[in-house]
């Protein structure tokens, strides 16, 4: 009867990444008061394939879903040959601020091989939200979602953003849309962030890709951040090909996340102050290049 269990929504509790702390402000650039926990599950994709996904959610101290749901959903697309768990710092950050982070575990860690996996994963979480289980009430299927992608995952995120209007907002982290992805046909909001010392992604491609965006958008260069600062435990031989981190990694990440937080709060929560801050584009440690 094991297959009956597989058919069920994920059961809890999740594995705690971050304990709740009411003293964390949750202002843009700071973690929020929620705890963060992760759970993995499988869903069906493309008729009959198995797609594994990881959900990092706002949690209480025991790893159960926090009570204030439903939470705005953010799909996170992993970079090429990077594991989803290497982005848990980012997922936990967002979850602590009340976002539900859904990350498809792409085959061979290459998101481009199946560009709609994030949309499929989000659909699964929305179904599980309507059932009994750990994620019951976690997401609102009628609420807009965002999609964030790092590096190669950003190119995939752009494909999904163009294809699926559920993704109101798109965030490109050290990335750019491929030439064949018609982002210029989409007038929804977008964010493009890259590090000033990133030597993996050509900045001119990031700038050119940003120039094709038709909706409200912000391009920011995080001063001192490199390509591998976006995820934990990069391989030494990859880091050797990247530029240096110029500053404390936690500080640089915090400055980058201030922009991401503002972007998400503005478009998924319709927070007027965040919207104003997004339009002004004045962030510490980030040079706006809109």
């Amino acid at each position, binding site marked *: 009867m094991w*297959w009956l269990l597989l*058919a069920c929504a994920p059961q809890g509790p999740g594995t705690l990444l971050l304990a709740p702390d009411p003293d964390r402000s949750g202002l843009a650039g700071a973690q929020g008061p929620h705890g963060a926990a992760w759970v993995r599950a*499988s869903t*069906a994709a493309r*008729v*009959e*394939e*198995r797609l594994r996904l990881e959900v990092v959610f706002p949690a209480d101290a025991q790893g159960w879903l926090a009570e204030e749901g439903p939470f705005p959903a953010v799909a996170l697309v992993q970079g090429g040959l990077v594991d989803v768990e290497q982005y848990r710092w980012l997922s936990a950050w967002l979850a602590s601020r009340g976002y539900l982070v859904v990350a498809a575990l792409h085959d061979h860690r290459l998101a481009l091989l199946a560009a709609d996996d994030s949309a499929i994963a989000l659909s*699964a979480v929305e179904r599980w939200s309507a059932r009994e289980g750990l994620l019951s009430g976690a997401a609102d299927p009628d609420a807009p979602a965002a999609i964030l992608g790092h590096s190669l995952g950003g190119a995939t995120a752009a494909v999904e953003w163009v294809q699926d209007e559920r993704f109101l907002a798109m965030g490109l982290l050290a990335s750019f849309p491929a030439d064949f992805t018609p982002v210029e046909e989409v007038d929804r909001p977008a964010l493009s962030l890259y590090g000033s010392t990133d030597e993996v992604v050509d900045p001119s491609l990031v700038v050119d890709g940003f120039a094709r965006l038709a909706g409200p958008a912000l391009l920011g260069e995080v001063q001192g951040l490199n390509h591998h600062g976006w995820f934990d435990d990069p391989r030494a031989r990859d880091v050797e090909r990247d530029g240096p981190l110029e500053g404390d990694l936690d500080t640089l990440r915090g400055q980058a996340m201030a922009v991401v937080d503002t972007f998400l709060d503005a478009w998924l929560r319709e927070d007027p102050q965040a919207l104003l801050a997004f339009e002004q584009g004045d962030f510490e440690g980030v040079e706006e290049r809109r």
Partner: protein
Amino acid sequence: MTGLLLAATLALGVARADPLALRHAGVEGAAAGVLGLPLTSVGAWRGDWGLALSSRDLAMASLEGARRWRGDQGRNELQLSAGLGALWLEPGMSGHLGLSLLRHAEGRRVGWTGSLSLPASLRLLGAAAPGPVEARLPLLLGNQLGVRAGDLWLGPVLELGLVVSPGRPLATAGQLGFVVAGPARARSSG
């Protein structure tokens, strides 16, 4: 011996859903098992009618029937298959229709098979369907080498292709596995 092999393949229960085993059983044998990822399949022919049981990712199981037409002394082969699948990861049912073209060649001990296969799948029922029906059209180009070992045919399987679904971005499909087919029999022309 063949029964044992098929039972072992079933028991191990690894990889996939178009009647892959029947394509490989078509090499020369009456029955075949393919142990692989993401699809595992076992199948057998009785004359030119075949039956296959397959599982992909342990997320579904399908039962499919096939008819084949052979020509050029068995070197060329056309297979048509149809079947139903049970999906339990997100409970539902799927339907399958497939068309495969195969070309076999072999020396005294080593041979190869090339195949071009167009299996199409529909999700007929189930919660995971974003709409009433989802179509899947993987175009798989396969090529496998094999060696004869007594009455058996042994060899690796490698297939690559694309998954085309209306309104969805392209996805890729791949299959890696190992085929055991047997017992070897003289080819009959179609």
